[in-house]
């Protein structure tokens, strides 16, 4: 069953054109020019209940705007949106009962007070029955190891601890859907792992639908089987992470360590990516040539001491898509 449906979602902002410097700012006092900025340009997707989806895109691609429409903060310019059967901007408060939101860069905890006090306030805001609240608190404390710092003022917590507190805070009222906006930003490896574990368990054990925006693609690899890629306000890919890999990860890199410095390197079917001393990285299209054929060509021409092959990681693939756009024929339409 679809829990989130977005169809032809568009959001256009009217922005003041800013000119640089103090002179520009003074001029803007007297005459202002406006421009339309299309933040979201016809976004379509549906999410089934209990899905865990990565919503990716470069800065300014329209990720946050989409999330703000789904959470009811913004009204779309056109298009339709339904979240758990509700149009969020029409029944914002009702929608708010169903959702939890974590903004990675912004905490909802009270800085000066023990973590527990923030939880108590949220319990009151969402009117969580006392028993359920205590159950959830015990459960999250166990997964996130909150017990140690539940009575410590938030200002004294490390970023990782605070973030764990924020996650528990967003989940105390058993939301059907959680929006996680860059939840692992700035965290160390251990804290990231704890957060990822928490997301996985909440999704699996409680059937919570999760939308995750992130720049850390390790989050995606670890967590979300499905990714939606957005650029310039449009969905440019929607499908399994694996498909993204096979369709876009067409190039591999052969790392060759030469036995002696070659004068000029020319291997048909490859291009040189980088060269550092005796180590040269050659890029090739795996659809056109097999690794075996390339290695043979290299060995025919030069004495070498070592070779290895690098598979493109998800970071590289996504970076390529951002840079090259989606003119690539292989881009999949939402299935």
């Amino acid at each position, binding site marked *: 069953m679809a829990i989130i449906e977005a169809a032809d979602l568009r959001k256009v902002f009217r922005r003041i054109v800013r000119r640089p410097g103090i002179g520009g700012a003074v001029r803007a006092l007297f005459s202002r020019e406006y421009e339309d900025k299309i933040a979201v340009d016809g976004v379509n997707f549906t999410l089934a209940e209990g899905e865990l989806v990565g919503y990716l895109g470069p800065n300014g691609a329209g990720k946050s705007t989409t999330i703000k429409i789904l959470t009811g903060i913004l*009204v779309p310019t056109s298009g339709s949106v339904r979240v758990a059967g509700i149009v969020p901007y029409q029944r914002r*408060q009702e929608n708010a009962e169903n959702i939890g939101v974590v903004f990675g860069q912004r905490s909802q905890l009270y800085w000066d007070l023990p973590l527990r006090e923030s939880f108590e*306030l949220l319990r009151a805001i969402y009117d969580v029955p006392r028993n359920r609240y205590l159950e959830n608190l015990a459960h999250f404390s166990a997964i996130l190891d909150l017990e140690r710092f539940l009575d410590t003022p938030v200002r004294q917590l490390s970023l990782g601890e605070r973030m764990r507190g924020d996650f528990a805070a967003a989940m105390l009222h058993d939301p059907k859907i959680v929006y996680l906006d860059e939840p692992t930003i700035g965290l160390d490896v251990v804290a990231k792992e704890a957060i990822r574990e928490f997301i996985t368990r909440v999704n699996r054990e409680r059937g919570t639908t999760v939308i995750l925006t992130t720049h850390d693609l390790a989050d995606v690899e670890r967590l979300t089987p499905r990714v939606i890629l957005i650029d310039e306000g449009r969905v440019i890919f929607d499908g399994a992470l694996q498909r993204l890999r096979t369709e876009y990860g067409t190039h591999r890199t052969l790392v060759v360590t030469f036995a002696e410095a070659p004068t000029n390197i020319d291997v048909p079917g490859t291009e040189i990516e980088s060269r550092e001393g005796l180590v040269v990285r050659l890029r090739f299209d795996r659809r056109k040539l097999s690794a075996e054929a390339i290695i043979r060509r290299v060995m025919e021409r030069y004495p070498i001491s070592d070779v290895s092959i690098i598979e493109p990681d998800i970071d590289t693939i996504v970076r390529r898509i951002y840079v090259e756009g989606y003119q690539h024929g292989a881009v999949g339409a939402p299935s």
Partner: protein
Amino acid sequence: MRWRRMAGVYRQYWRINILTTLEYRENFVVWFAFTFVYHGSSIAALWIVLSRFPSMNGWSFRDMAFLYALWMVAHALHNTLFSTVGEVPDHIRNGEFDRLLVRPLDTLFQAIATPGQVFPDELVLAIVTFVAATIYAGVHVDAMFLTFIPLIFIGGALIDLGINLIISTAAFWFVKVDALRWIFVQLEQEFTRYPVTIYTRGVRFVLTFVFPFAFMNYFPARYFLHKGMSGLGLPPVAGLLTPAIGIVFVALAYVFWRFGLNRYQGVGH
């Protein structure tokens, strides 16, 4: 159901307020002392100015002490209960305001119930001042007085809330509204110190019907001090209308707030 929930949130809000204030004990002590110095010195300054005039448009110095104390309590009540509404523009600017929109309660209620560092020290001082001024001015304290005075304080606080809300709502368009707020704070302080009859007709009209500061203290004081008709032709009993004026003014400000909020949700900021 909803009201019960709001009461629960409000209780928790005050708990956080007080805990936060007490968390920083030294700051609290300094602040508490400052309240008395600050308000004490403004009362003293007023005293010096007013004691030079035997009377102003038929108002004696004692009358004016009562006038000032009336405003002081209403204003302190506002500062204690509603001052966080004034932080909305900051929250719009730094993005925190979005948090209120993803919670299942009315945004204005949340803006009021956002824990700030508020402590009822100013209110306590204002009430002490008011009791002293009432005795000093020789106001006849009867059942009528005891019934209406608390309502007049609440009405006055609501008038202040209305102004605060209108200014904060302007931030949905202009984001930063410090200048506007400063102007209103200054005007309110000036125009509530003296009987409005000393001002021109235009100013009196604005203070009565547009931004009804005159209902915070002038009209109620006139009623309780038996001052007779005012220049605007309102009967003395208008002084008892303050609670109603407060409710209507806040209701109008709330309509404006909803309008601004819709705009915010439409265009962002």
